[in-house]
């Protein structure tokens, strides 16, 4: 599903990641931890083809990420949307905007897509607030709206970048319940980037740590897949 083969990445002459090799299989839940600036977000950006590796290859569903086109199979939830805090966009519009890459110009949303929108709003507990501006919601609700947006294309692989940043304990519990549903019921593979182990404890099948340019399994975490070859 996702494969890093001896991947290296540098910002100018400053190496950030070196010789990363790992594989993520269908339905896996992987947590990635590490100190600030270690390269966690760089790892995600490489996986999504937003930046190109300086060495090695990143493959999504068997295709090099720079040539990958089946983006409906991949969902991405940024740490925080870069939209202005005054963006007058409703929750419904945020979720529907997830379909923008799939729809032809002026095409109407199909009945299947409409059903999917209703489904993700329900799973994320957002039906009651769908007409409200996203900036009116709590941090946790906003985060779930971003996840709903990423899920609307029915992805098979979901990236979550620090999803619990700035959310309260109650919202973390709600987010966790939503993730359990995604993993256990919908069988979506998840790459969960976080500082906060409480967000993925009991959900993550593997915990990887990004440190000193390497990606290493955290000792004592759940069994490391034989498909993983960190720090080559």
């Amino acid at each position: 599903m996702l494969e890093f083969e001896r991947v290296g990445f540098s910002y100018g002459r400053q190496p950030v990641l070196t010789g990363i090799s790992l594989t993520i299989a269908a339905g896996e839940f992987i947590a990635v931890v590490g100190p600030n600036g270690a390269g966690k977000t760089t790892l995600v950006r490489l996986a999504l083809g937003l930046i190109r590796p300086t060495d090695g290859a990143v493959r999504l569903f068997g295709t090099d990420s720079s040539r990958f086109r089946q983006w409906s199979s991949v969902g991405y939830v940024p740490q925080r949307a870069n939209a202005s805090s005054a963006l007058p966009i409703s929750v419904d519009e945020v979720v529907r905007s997830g379909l923008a890459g799939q729809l032809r110009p002026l095409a109407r949303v199909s009945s299947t897509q409409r059903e999917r929108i209703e489904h993700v709003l329900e799973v994320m507990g957002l039906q009651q607030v769908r007409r409200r501006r996203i900036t009116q919601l709590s941090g946790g609700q906003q985060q779930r709206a971003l996840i709903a947006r990423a899920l609307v294309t029915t992805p098979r692989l979901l990236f979550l970048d620090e999803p619990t940043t700035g959310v309260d304990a109650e919202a973390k519990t709600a987010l966790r319940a939503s993730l359990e549903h995604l993993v256990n019921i919908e069988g979506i593979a998840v790459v969960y980037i976080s500082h906060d182990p409480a967000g993925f404890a009991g959900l993550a099948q593997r915990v990887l740590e990004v440190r000193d340019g390497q990606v290493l399994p955290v000792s004592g975490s759940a069994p490391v897949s034989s498909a993983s070859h960190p720090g080559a």
Partner: protein
Amino acid sequence: MLELEFMQRALIACTVIAAIAPLVGSFIVQRRQSLIGDGMGHMAFAGVGLALLTGIHPLIGALGLTVIAAVALVRMSKRQGGGDLSLALLFYGGISAGFLFAARSGGGQTAVVGLLFGSPLNLQWWEVAAITALAGVVLLITAVVYRQLLAMAFDEASAKVAGIPTQALTLILTLMVALIVVAGMTTIGLLLISAMMVVPIAAATQIAGSYRATLAIGSGIGALSAVLGLTLSYYGDFAPGAAIVVVAILCYLVTSTFALLTGRYHRRRA
């Protein structure tokens, strides 16, 4: 007032452009590029100067140079930190070149002032038709790529991951800004058309509950500002472009006061 043909032409041209400009403005505001219209305005001014020098119509000169500037701007801003610098280059290069060309042409002082501050009362019917056509093109493009523009305004990285060609879309958006600037230079003026892209949207943002509503309200405020501004200009002998922008700013004060008093949409991220 309405029985005068020059006022009819001014009303149609100003209302059309003031209603369409906020549609483009909404996306540039969200991308924190509110000053891009000013940059384009300066390049249009250079185009007008070049047109005066070479004897072509100012509309053609402005359109040509702003389109070239739009492409150059997008290419330059791809470089890290290049966006701000490239906009500054447009600002200063455009205004300097415009004055140099206009001075060299040895005439057209009145035309230059008219384009800087707008002179809708001097429009001919063919110019009204040209402005309406340019605005129509912008409306059509906005309708076609609305969903993609909205996704990009919300979060560009997510939009890229969703398969949206964000670079092409950025170029389209910048070209639309260029079209609005050119369409608005004879009506509201090169120095003020950018305000009509930004101020009605800022006003609408205070009271709208969704993006679609923001566009509709912003467009309505733009049109209302054009009608009221021209009416004020007619009876009060004010400069039309300035009067239109002042009405739009008053609309912003009204909606922001309303939002403040009612507490609408003033809660920020938790």
